């Protein structure tokens, strides 16, 4: 047998074997939840066997998620199914990373999920997956500290918030804050500054961008007012930036504007006192308050060699089971996270007193989706630095936001 024939036969055999191995390999579902958090979902994945197609879980830390996906794709080793933060979606769609869902799945989503949350998984009118975890921001108060300061209910307006925060704040002999009336979260992404800003901006009636994302609206009076409200807290010494809202579970912080996903941490910190002492309430901006919501959604990689099977698994994980909640719904409920899946919400027990206001904010349409703009992470990093500089007293709101507006429009100009 000539050598060339032997080499060709060997390559064909090897290629066929590799393809067979790929077909036999479990579908990979990549999420940022730890094994412990994802336990109900892991049980579903372990049981899954659709005509020989099985599934496995891959945990990628939230902070490294995008990088891991990119590196994996460059190396040709991407997972089949992603759980994506909606602000990453625009770039992934723009670069053809995601597969379009089949029609029956699109109908399943549009029929079963709240409209506002479907928007989070929609880019330019096309749905790219199944919404999973939804988070909304509300005012979260430590009522034990508020009661100690003489207040029986959380504030309903910003002026009230300032008054309550000032009353709660105590300082030690060196002037350092011991109990903080209000705190901002110190997160690496800058979300601790940006997300409360969005909540105040929406409550002021503003929007961060024009509808087509061609222009930024950070110079608008609403944006200046929103930032001025935040900055007033530090400028008037009601709080300072050395206090981190992520320390709320330790009990020394009166109020923060925070998402519901933090519930499990707060509950762990407060223990038995959680139900009595921790209250979630409206963003204190009067009757017309609005807030921010963001969502994750499950999508399929366009490089998956079994897209149909992958979409079937996505549906399986998100579809109610015999009148009970879906695998995903059960997992999210365990985490104290929200889902916009109406069947899940009907199947799950009534939310507790802490979670109910978040559910209501989503149901009443007060929670507005985080914009799915290109380069979201980069833009929000810039926003965070601007907000922090103003809150630290290094800049005034109006000129700082003008500068931000120019920088952001520079980015928008590249893409829109």
């Amino acid at each position, binding site marked *: 047998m000539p050598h060339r024939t032997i080499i060709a036969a060997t390559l064909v055999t090897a290629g066929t074997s590799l393809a067979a191995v790929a077909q036999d390999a479990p579908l990979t579902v990549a999420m940022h939840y730890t094994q412990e958090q994802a336990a109900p979902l892991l049980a579903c994945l372990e049981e899954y066997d659709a005509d020989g197609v099985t599934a496995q879980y891959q945990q990628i830390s939230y902070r490294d998620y995008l990088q891991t996906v990119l590196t994996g794709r460059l190396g040709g080793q991407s997972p089949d199914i992603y759980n994506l933060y909606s602000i990453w979606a625009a770039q992934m769609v723009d670069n053809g990373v995601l597969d379009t869902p089949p029609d029956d799945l699109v109908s399943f989503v549009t029929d079963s999920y709240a409209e506002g949350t479907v928007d989070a998984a929609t880019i330019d009118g096309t749905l790219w997956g199944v919404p999973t975890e939804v988070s909304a921001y509300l005012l979260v108060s430590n009522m034990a500290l508020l009661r100690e300061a003489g207040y029986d209910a959380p504030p309903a307006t910003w002026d009230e918030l300032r008054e309550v925060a000032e009353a709660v704040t105590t300082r030690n002999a060196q002037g350092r804050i011991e109990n903080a009336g209000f705190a901002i979260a110190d997160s690496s992404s800058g979300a601790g500054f940006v997300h409360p800003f969005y909540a105040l901006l929406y409550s002021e009636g503003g929007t961060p961008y024009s509808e087509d994302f061609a222009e930024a609206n950070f110079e608008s009076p609403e944006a200046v007012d929103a930032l001025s409200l935040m900055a007033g807290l530090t400028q008037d010494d009601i709080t300072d930036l*050395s206090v981190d809202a992520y320390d709320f579970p330790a009990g020394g912080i009166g109020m923060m504007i925070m998402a519901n996903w933090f519930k499990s941490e707060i509950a762990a910190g407060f223990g038995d006192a959680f139900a009595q002492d921790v209250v979630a309430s409206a963003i204190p901006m009067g009757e017309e308050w609005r807030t921010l919501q963001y969502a994750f959604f499950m999508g399929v990689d366009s490089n998956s060699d079994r897209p149909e099977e992958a979409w079937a698994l996505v549906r399986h994980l998100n579809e109610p089971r015999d009148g009970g909640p879906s695998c995903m719904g059960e997992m999210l409920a365990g985490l104290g996270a929200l889902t916009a899946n109406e069947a899940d919400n009907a199947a799950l027990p009534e939310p507790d007193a802490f979670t109910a206001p978040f559910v209501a904010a989503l149901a009443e349409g007060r929670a507005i989706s985080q914009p799915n703009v290109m380069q979201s*992470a980069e833009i929000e990093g810039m926003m965070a630095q601007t907000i922090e500089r103003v809150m630290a007293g290094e800049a005034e709101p109006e000129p700082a936001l003008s500068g931000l507006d120019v920088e952001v429009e520079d980015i928008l100009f590249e893409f829109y």
Partner: protein
Amino acid sequence: MERRPKEFDPAGGGWAPWLFLSPLLVFAALFFVLPLGFSVYLSFTRWNPLGTPDWVGLRQFEYLLTRDTTFWATILNTFVFAFGFVVAGVPLALGLAFVFSRARGKAVWRSVYYLPQLTNIVAIAYLWQFVLDDRYGLVNRLLGMAGLRGPDWLTDPVMAMISVVMVMVWYDAGKNMLVFSAALEAVDQEIYDAATLDGAGATRTLWSVTLPMIRPAFIFVTITSFITGMGFFALILAMTGGGPRGATEVTALYTYRMAFEDLRMGRASAGALILFVIIGVISLLQFRALKERAT
């Protein structure tokens, strides 16, 4: 007549030298030349790793050098960090090496000071966060017990830079101390004896004998510390994340973020290349200056 051994000549020795050199050459090509070449190519493109690179010529350099004020701020931070690290770290390492060369149980002391090098840098960052936290940190708690208000180590822009330099010096002192120790051990005792006979005191011996004798080690440590300081960012990423308000954001961290968070590989490569050139030029100048003084 005695036969002289043939000198090694890789160009004239046939294929054998190249065969033996080939693993090293392949390794260098794969892991140094290729990535560097790719990075240089990327710096002339606009590329997010999800798509394909678009050739944009010098636009990335133009943007960074003429329009990106943050980039210049990070260059300044990089110099402050690197100079702070060299100015505080090199004398400290030299001092420790000098003290321990005369101390009892010097091997134990050297091992103790080398320990941070064996620890994960992220663990070190978290450890120091606990120590330096403004409200709950050990240092400020102790100062508070003494009735003193400690600095805002991690939330004040100036103090945050001082803090990261301090921790970097602490982390690296043991490594440089070992280099200085080896150099000190290599100085011939007879030279010290001669200096003593000539009536030189301890200080004169240090300045006129010890330091000149260990100058090669001093040049090595200064230049490598400077290069390390200019390109190091893992500690800062884990300890302050570049904050507060960009006060500790060095260029390496800025380009890392640009590449992996903002998905701007082309611009990040251009930034990294500019940093590479700056480090190269300054290291060369530094090497020449220190060598001239030595001769």
